[in-house]
């Protein structure tokens, strides 16, 4: 009946990391309002308080087993800036290759294991691509599911050659890295990288060489590439694109239209004496924001960050900068959709408000002209964004997968640039101070703030990509990016709302990093620290 609102509580959404519940209001088969709830709380910042300054190197990778290298990167650079270290060139490259190999692993793993298995949902049985999707993408038994999931284990073999194991190494430390790879570690890494290219990227994902794919600069180039050869159209990229268009994944999942990236991959010659202020001018992959309404790019600074707790399970309201945050959690956490309903906070930019973080944000920023000439520039996704009328589930996922080529080339760069007989570590002098480390996890903007006093951690704070994306309403009652992206989503079968899953998975949300801390018994003391 027109005008009747149906409320649907979905617990859990699944296939986002951690426990996400979603409430949606549906009218005439379309979502008209949405609430996202982070439903797990562990308390990492409480644990870090009073601990060894280097405890974050052990603890924070465990905030997220999927983005552990990204947390380790942030933890290391945060201490580097606090202690005023010097980081040798080899170590910057060795940290970058760890971050890159984790990200390269994540692409097929997310694509097959988390994203494409929804294509075999009975919702899409009338699509002309359905039968082929079932053959390729059925969980565990699909032909390409198996290739994708199995081959995704290879890039992190490179990580293991530098860090010993993936996940959960702590090989990045202030002043450098713990490893000192030999020639065979580097040549073996090349072998693994080539194997991954020859067995997944080119034959399965693209149906062409990386070089041919790199010729694509505009939306038209991409469409021409798709039609150029049956190998392109039948590749997994071709199949993803065609079926997504067929089932309408280009029609919903818009979001808030403003985007953020911290930038990542410090330049090995420009960031050897790391400072917070000097960071933006030293990243291979530039930092920035993109505002679609004004079509404008700006640089991003950590000082612009604010957290708002009006609808989160804390007594305070904010907005507050993370360094100044004094968390006052509430003792019990019943969901109240007019009041507090999530452990996530509403993160915003002091001027731009709520921003979307993630691969789409990165790609839109890489199309800007606000960066230095040597920094990465790639206008394809921004061009698609403008010509396709903005963001969608399809474009957000495409942006994620498109990043493979920059990641691949940067791994090659690291392998070429290592000077094996030069130092990997310069022992720093420990001291008190404030530090900040940032990076881009595959799923978006991640940073750590640390305050070291009297030789121990006084305060440690993390804002993860999912904190930006999955946050609840703020004090102005504005929806968070994913809540906003859910509005307009068509729901065909309320007993199996797979479309809600599409939106959540296009952000590759990770609740485990969003989970904040407080102690029910002594609340007040612990309440000053929040985290991972």
């Amino acid at each position, binding site marked *: 009946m027109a005008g009747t609102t149906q409320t649907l*509580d*979905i*617990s*859990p959404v*699944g*296939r986002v*990391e951690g426990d996400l519940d979603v409430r949606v209001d549906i009218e005439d088969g379309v979502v008209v309002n949405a609430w996202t709830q982070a439903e*797990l*709380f*562990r*308390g990492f910042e*409480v*644990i870090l308080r009073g*601990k*060894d300054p*280097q*405890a974050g190197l*052990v*603890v924070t990778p*465990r905030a*997220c*087993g*999927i983005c*552990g290298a990204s947390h380790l990167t942030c933890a290391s650079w945060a201490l580097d800036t606090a202690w005023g270290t010097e980081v040798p060139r080899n170590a910057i490259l060795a940290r970058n290759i760890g971050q890159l190999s984790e990200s390269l692993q994540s692409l097929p*793993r997310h694509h097959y*294991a988390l994203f494409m*298995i929804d294509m075999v*949902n009975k919702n899409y049985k009338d699509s002309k691509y359905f039968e082929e999707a079932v053959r390729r993408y059925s*969980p*565990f*038994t699909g032909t390409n*599911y198996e290739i994708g*999931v*199995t081959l995704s*284990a290879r890039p992190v*073999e490179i*990580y293991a*050659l530098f*860090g*010993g*194991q*993936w*996940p*959960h190494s702590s*090989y990045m*430390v202030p*002043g*450098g890295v713990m*490893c*000192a790879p030999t020639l065979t570690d580097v040549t073996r890494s090349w072998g693994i990288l080539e194997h991954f290219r020859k067995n997944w990227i080119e034959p399965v994902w693209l149906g062409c060489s990386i070089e041919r794919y790199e010729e694509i600069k505009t939306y038209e180039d991409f469409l021409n590439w798709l039609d150029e050869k049956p190998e392109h159209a039948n590749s997994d990229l071709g199949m993803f694109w065609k079926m997504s268009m067929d089932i309408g994944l280009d029609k919903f999942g818009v979001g808030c239209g403003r985007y953020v990236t911290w930038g990542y991959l410090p330049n090995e010659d420009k960031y050897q004496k790391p400072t917070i202020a000097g960071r933006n001018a030293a990243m291979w992959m530039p930092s920035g924001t993109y505002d679609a309404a004004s079509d404008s790019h700006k640089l991003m600074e950590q000082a612009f960050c604010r957290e708002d707790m009006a609808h989160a399970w804390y007594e305070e309201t904010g907005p507050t900068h993370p360094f100044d945050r004094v968390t006052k959690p509430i003792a019990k956490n019943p969901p109240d959709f007019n009041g507090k309903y999530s452990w996530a906070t509403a993160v915003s930019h002091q001027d731009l408000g709520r921003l979307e973080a993630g691969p789409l944000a990165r790609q839109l920023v890489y199309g800007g002209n606000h960066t230095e000439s040597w920094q990465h520039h790639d206008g394809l996704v921004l061009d698609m964004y403008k010509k396709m009328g903005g963001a969608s589930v399809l474009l957000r996922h495409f942006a994620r997968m498109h990043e493979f080529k920059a990641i691949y080339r940067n791994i090659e760069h690291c392998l070429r640039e290592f000077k*094996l007989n030069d130092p990997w*570590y310069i*022992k720093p002098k420990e001291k008190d101070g404030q530090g900040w480390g940032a990076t881009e996890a595959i799923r978006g903007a991640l940073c750590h703030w640390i305050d070291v006093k009297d030789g121990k951690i006084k305060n440690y704070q993390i804002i993860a990509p999912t904190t930006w994306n999955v946050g609840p309403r703020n004090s102005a009652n504005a929806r968070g990016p994913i809540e906003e992206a859910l509005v307009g989503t068509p729901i065909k079968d309320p*007993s*199996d709302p797979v479309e809600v899953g599409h939106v959540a998975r296009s952000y590759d949300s990770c609740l*485990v990093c969003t989970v904040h*801390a407080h102690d*029910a018994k*002594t609340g007040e003391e*612990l309440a000053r620290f929040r985290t991972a």
Partner: protein
Amino acid sequence: MANLLWLQGGACSGNTMSFLNAEEPSACDLVTDFGINILWHPSLGVELGNNLQQLLKDCVSGKIKLDIFVFEGTVVNAPDGTGTWNRFAGRPMKEWVKELSAVADFVVAIGDCATWGGIPAIAPNPSDSVGLQFLKKNHGGALGKAFKSKAGLPVINIPGCPAHPDWVSQILVAVATGRAGDLTLDEYQRPKTFFQSFTQTGCTRNMHFAYKVSSTQFGQRNGCLFYDLGCRGPMTHSPCNRILWNRQSSKTRAGMPCLGCTEPEFPFHDLMPGTVFKTQTVMGVPKELPTGVEKNSYIKYTGAAKAAAPKWAEEDMFVV
């Protein structure tokens, strides 16, 4: 065919990510070659919302037979024993854990969080987390000391932060191929086949340990990490250097001191100031000695080892 259900409590997904690196067999092989039917998994399962809640209820009621229940992450009890800080599928996760464990033939705890509480349970343990049958070294946990699954075994603990994929997949294959009777568990319910030897077993730095040649700072290719950098390889039970990580290496081979993550006390010393990546010593002698070694014997043998050390032991062995 064996029905397997995998849930996560206070987890980081690290064990799942590790599991997806498995080979011989891979995660897919477990399904296609060994008949393990994965009913649902938080990262890989198809169902969401009410459909999943129904599946869980059907397992609890016995309508769907649950052969193997795998749990990753801690059991969260906060606040005040309610467990509402970790709600899942409409109710506290701890309630699902109790009901599902009661009907499963085998209960497997994967990773340090599920075995003994791991990182979230470091003091002050803000989420009031416990493992399935232990909190650190204390027997009990969420299911109680006396718990045995329907097959008559206590929780099978596969620790590690994360657990190595092989440790997980080989145990699942043992269960699926009817070899569960060969499983022998140590006092912390770890399968002895993996956890009787030490992390040091197979370490490429062993000759440096033998001649007491120390790595004094990071980024060195030679030297043992035990004497100065806090390595726990000689007193940690794990096969990290005989079943390599990601088919390639191990932490100690790559130059990272072992943190002892397969032991209940991980992370040691609660990460208090001065304890991270630094060997704790008294008058130059490590406070924690290799398992089974007495202080006086240690002093004698390290003195003799140093005196006997050949010249090459001090030179780079692993050169560019």
